[in-house]
């Protein structure tokens, strides 16, 4: 049954890794702007220059 020690230790270590990743992300400023990225991801990667005649609203 002592496998429980191992399993829980591993699970806590995994959780700690996520906490570390979170703190690192905050430090890099990834949480400073919570709006722009959500819009940015919707843009097409590359718009075709000749496409503009058809793109009317």
């Amino acid at each position, binding site marked *: 049954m002592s496998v429980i020690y191992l399993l829980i230790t591993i699970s806590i270590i995994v959780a700690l890794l996520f906490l570390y990743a979170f703190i690192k992300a905050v430090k890099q400023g990834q949480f400073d702007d919570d709006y*722009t990225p959500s819009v940015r991801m919707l843009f097409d990667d590359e718009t075709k220059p000749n496409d503009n005649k058809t793109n009317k609203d």
Partner: protein
Amino acid sequence: MNTHNCFHCGLIIEKKEEIVFEQKSFCCNGCKTVYEIFSLNGLTDYYNFEKAPGATPQDIKGKYDFLENEAIVNRLLDFKEEHTHIISLYIPHIHCSSCIWILENLHRLCPGISSSQVNFHEKKARILFNPQVVSLTQIVYLLNSIGYEPYISLDNYDSQKKNVDRSLIYKLGVAFFCFGNIMLLSFPEYFEVEEYWLDNYRGFFRWLIFALALPSFIYAASGYYVSAFKSIRAGMLNIDIPIALGLVVMFVRSTVDIVFGYGSGFFDSLAGLVFFMLLGRLFQQKTYNFLSFERDFKSYFPIAVTKIVGGQEIAIPVYDVVMGDRLLIRNSELIPVDGILMSDTTSIDYSFVTGEAEPITKKSGDKIYAGGRQMGPVVEMQVLSSVSQSYLTQLWSNEVFAKKDNRTYKTLTDTISRYFTPVLLLIAVVSFSIWIFIDTTTAFNVFTAVLIVACPCALALSAPFTVGNVLRIMGNRKLYLKNATVIEQMAKVDTIVFDKTGTITTNKKSEITYQGEYIDNKERAFIKSLLRGSNHPLSRRLYEFLPASQLLPVDDFKEVTGKGIQGTIDGFYIRIGSAAFVGEEPDTVLQTNVHISINRNYQGKYVFDNQYRDGLGELFAQLGKGYELKILSGDNEGEREILQSLLPKGTELIFNQKPEQKLAYIEQLQQQGKNVMMVGDGLNDAGALAQSNVGISISENVNVFSPACDGILDASQFKKLGWFLKFSKNTITTIKLSFTLSLLYNVVGLSFAVTGKLQPLTAAIIMPLSTITIVSFVTLMSNYFARRR
């Protein structure tokens, strides 16, 4: 496609000025040019994200010449290397996804730009460029040519890299980590099953939970201990005291429990409590990053000025201006320092500094003061003092204005907690002393259980969540408040003081249009010459509006009070005045008109656009019922009568007020025990705004400038001021109701605690349950009140 609105900027197109290009209509050449730039570069996707997202480019020739000066540029840059420069530019026009898209595709318009990134909330674009290919000036001009003029002011010049305070997010992360893991590890204990392996590993689980609780208890909750300690030292009982007390007792009791094997302790509740309360803090921490509530003259001042040295114009930083310099001030530029006017004549608009609406005419040799806006053509001036010694700067550093708001407001939560803490301690002591006669161990358990279960988590959460939600709702409706306490202050207001110029009137004042038969230049000269003799405010305004022309001698000039003026010029008999005066039917529409007749033939009328804000009459009628209204104006008494007709009877009108007098007036009202809200706009109101209980600044463009204040209201929403005040009152009602609700939970919890039956599981259920009900209750209530008219 909508043919009535400009394809680029969405403004309504005047039929005469419509420009059609590629089957799209534009309101002006500027908008068409922007479209051309985009379509040439294959960037017309810009128009697909949002309808008519653009702005008309302004004429900024010469305005940014100072960016050629390397010293200035260096102060502005974030990062500098031979091939890469990074600059963050504040661009007020950023407002939609199209803006983000075009600004992040700048590299396709300009090869020197390698990439750009937009921060929408801060309205900033961070641009990476190669200085050997493109200069900062070119980038600024490019931005302007596509309608995104950056705003560069003296504020940028001094700004150090601001350290963003992210500690709350770190704490929240740690608290959630602890909370989640403790909850998982606590589950076996909740069911109290007598099982071999559970008994065997109980110690391991408990000590692991203890270890996980430590970061939450020590680091994540640290803010509460600090705040509780501070408030005890200040002799005030705030809500953080029972919270900190509850947390400490919870931790000590739980530790004792697991050390002596009494039970599993309350670490799960502890970690949950910390997490939820931090969440509440985060929710309340709604800030409008792109707005600054502490702005001073610096963000109003230009960063550089044009100096004339030996006939050459060079841009120098405004701080480098010294006595004796010769400066060139263009139209609508700000005068940065006190000096002497060298050019012939000009008019200077001091409305922002003094509240005086009319521009003042200055002649060569007159002294001109910093802070005025130059309204005439290009002028030259001789500097008399440095920037820091100018009248405006000194006014600003004047003690009265520098007086920071030190008054500590007692918030609603503080008021409740003043009673809450003693009552809580009383219950704990009483139940302890009763139980001590029955059973000593239970007595200690009861004592700690009371402090644990009564830990006012829900109570502490209700105000932040309500206020946070309300701040968001108000922000969506364009009233941006500095922080949460402003709402409580707003609800208490009983007197509202309005500034006149720029607040209840709009700044765009000289909107005069002519309707009627065509009048030629000669006739216009007649009108102007006749107007010259009259001192009536309308005459003065019309006189200034008409183009300069040769003034002719007037014969038989006569002014009929309240009606108009008449006279003969060059054989023409001219009458200017009310409709009846020129022999027309009286006006039916409520407009200010000045009618013209020449030789008894009716010509037409000059229509004065109502310069008062929309819905002013209704707003005052609405506010007049519940509030004492006052008008403070830096202007003269010229408009007393018009104002009196708009305002409810008995409204006090005070004119010719200097900034210091305004401040003193507010102070005097406060000494009479009134809660004053000041609504103002300019630098001249800054002192009054700071002194008042709630200072609201009205701004035509919230991004540009407003004096230090508690809230910024978009000018278009001015008529909704009454609604905002009512909403703030309802907010307080919501908070009070939620207090009652959370106190009920406390009563239930306490009934478990005093009878000695509090199990860790009960605590673990009551705590999140109360939190969730309170949070959903206040959110629903504030949204309901927001929808109500």
